[in-house]
């Protein structure tokens, strides 16, 4: 009984220690849920030329930029799944697939090719959002979501460019938040948020 109380962290028992990577995972999950809340409440009202920012995609991209391919794959998939469950026009899993693929691509580039730089985050976010929209529309068309392409090339280009601009704008603060949230995880510490660097800030 005492053991059970301790395990559940009840009064009288000791709280179970969560490892730094575990705490990082919890903070990252909280960041993704917060992004969903903001997306559902605020982002849809911030349309410019008919296009709104996609904060969940930005979280996936921030994960890839700050944490590398492993973070990009997992966080991208989870953020996409949250977006899928909230959206209503496309099947569940389509955004998850898209964000997962793009997260891997961006993360792999970040792991192997691209060095850190001031302009890296917004430029990469812009390019990756364009790629994400293209992948989403192509995959959607393949699985029978033909309405995604019926709007015409002009409308698609407009939505893609505006959404990419939003991503470039939001990627800087979101990736900063991701680096803070992901402190303690191997990927973030290796790429973007080394403890000694963050401690010095």
């Amino acid at each position, binding site marked *: 009984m005492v053991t059970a109380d301790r395990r559940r962290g009840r009064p009288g028992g000791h709280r179970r220690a969560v490892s730094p990577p575990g705490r990082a995972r919890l903070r990252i999950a909280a960041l993704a849920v917060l992004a969903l809340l903001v997306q559902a409440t605020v982002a849809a009202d911030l*349309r410019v030329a008919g296009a709104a920012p996609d904060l969940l995609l930005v979280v996936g991209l921030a994960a890839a930029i700050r944490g590398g391919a492993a973070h990009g794959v997992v966080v991208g998939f989870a953020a996409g799944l949250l977006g899928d469950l909230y959206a209503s026009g496309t099947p569940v899993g389509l955004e998850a697939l898209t964000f*997962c693929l793009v997260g891997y691509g961006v993360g792999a580039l970040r792991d192997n090719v691209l060095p850190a730089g001031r302009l890296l985050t917004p430029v990469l976010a812009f390019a990756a959002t364009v790629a994400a929209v293209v992948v989403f529309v192509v995959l959607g068309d393949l699985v029978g979501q033909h309405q995604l392409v019926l*709007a015409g090339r002009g409308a698609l280009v407009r939505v893609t460019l505006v959404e990419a601009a939003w991503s470039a704008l939001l990627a800087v603060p979101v990736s900063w938040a991701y680096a803070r949230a992901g402190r303690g995880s191997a990927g973030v510490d290796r790429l973007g948020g080394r403890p000694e660097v963050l401690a010095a800030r």
Partner: protein
Amino acid sequence: MAVARRSQRTRTLLFALLLVGVTLVTIDSRAAHGGVLGQVRGRLHDGLAPVQSATHAALAPLGNFLTGAADYGSLRAENDRLRRQIAAMQAQSIAAAAATAEAQAIIAGAHLSFVGSIPTVQALVIDQGSSNFDNAITLDKGSADGLAVGQPVVAAGVGGPAGGATPGGLVGSVGAVSAHTATVDLLTDPGAVVGVSLPGANTGTAEGVGPGSPLKVTVISTAAAPPQVHKGDAVATSGLPLERYPAGIPVGTVASVTTSSTNAEPAVTLKPLVDLGRLDVVEVELWSPQTAAGAAPAGTAGP
């Protein structure tokens, strides 16, 4: 060595998640957005509805400002165009009024069975679509308020063509419903099809092409002569048997008519009466083809 191992692990994870994603897409597509995943979606919408209602009301002015700033050039051009149109319309007002009255009389005479007698539920739009590819809106009312999939949705307090006194225009139909929220598939959604009445006792279907684009009208049955459709004509739902909408709901005005030598029927496009990008309050008609049929003597249902 460690880097290679890490890359291999990441690739394995990627393939596993891709497999999960493909499975989810397949399951949800086959369930037509219903099933367990549909229920999860409904619960999530219900949970977020109170927060959305509060923030939407607070942030709508900021959204309108951003939209207005982005559309400034086109609004100015639209203003100039409208001024010229008003001048032209003043000269043609008598003929236009007569034509409009005639069209309305045809529509009214053909189908006036239950417009105005259908009970409605007023609902607040709490989300204009979170995704850029989501051609739907979310309402703050759900099945607990009597809403059901397929019910027609019209905009409240919108004037009809040429300042007419229609009660509003068609917005779309309820596509999914949870206890406290409902998702409305808009008229402009590429999957949306509405049966419409055209002048000269013709009927047709109006199909959505995408947000911001006029509906594409296909004439499906004509009287002896090809339909005489003119720009600005008012078009309403036909309400024919098996249609998803009752008769007489104004849908839009004819935006363009193109005739060709190869096709007897003109190519017609329709501009929705309601600005679907800026909806705040809508009315949901508690109507379905089944309830309309239920008004007829029952007795065939059940063993």
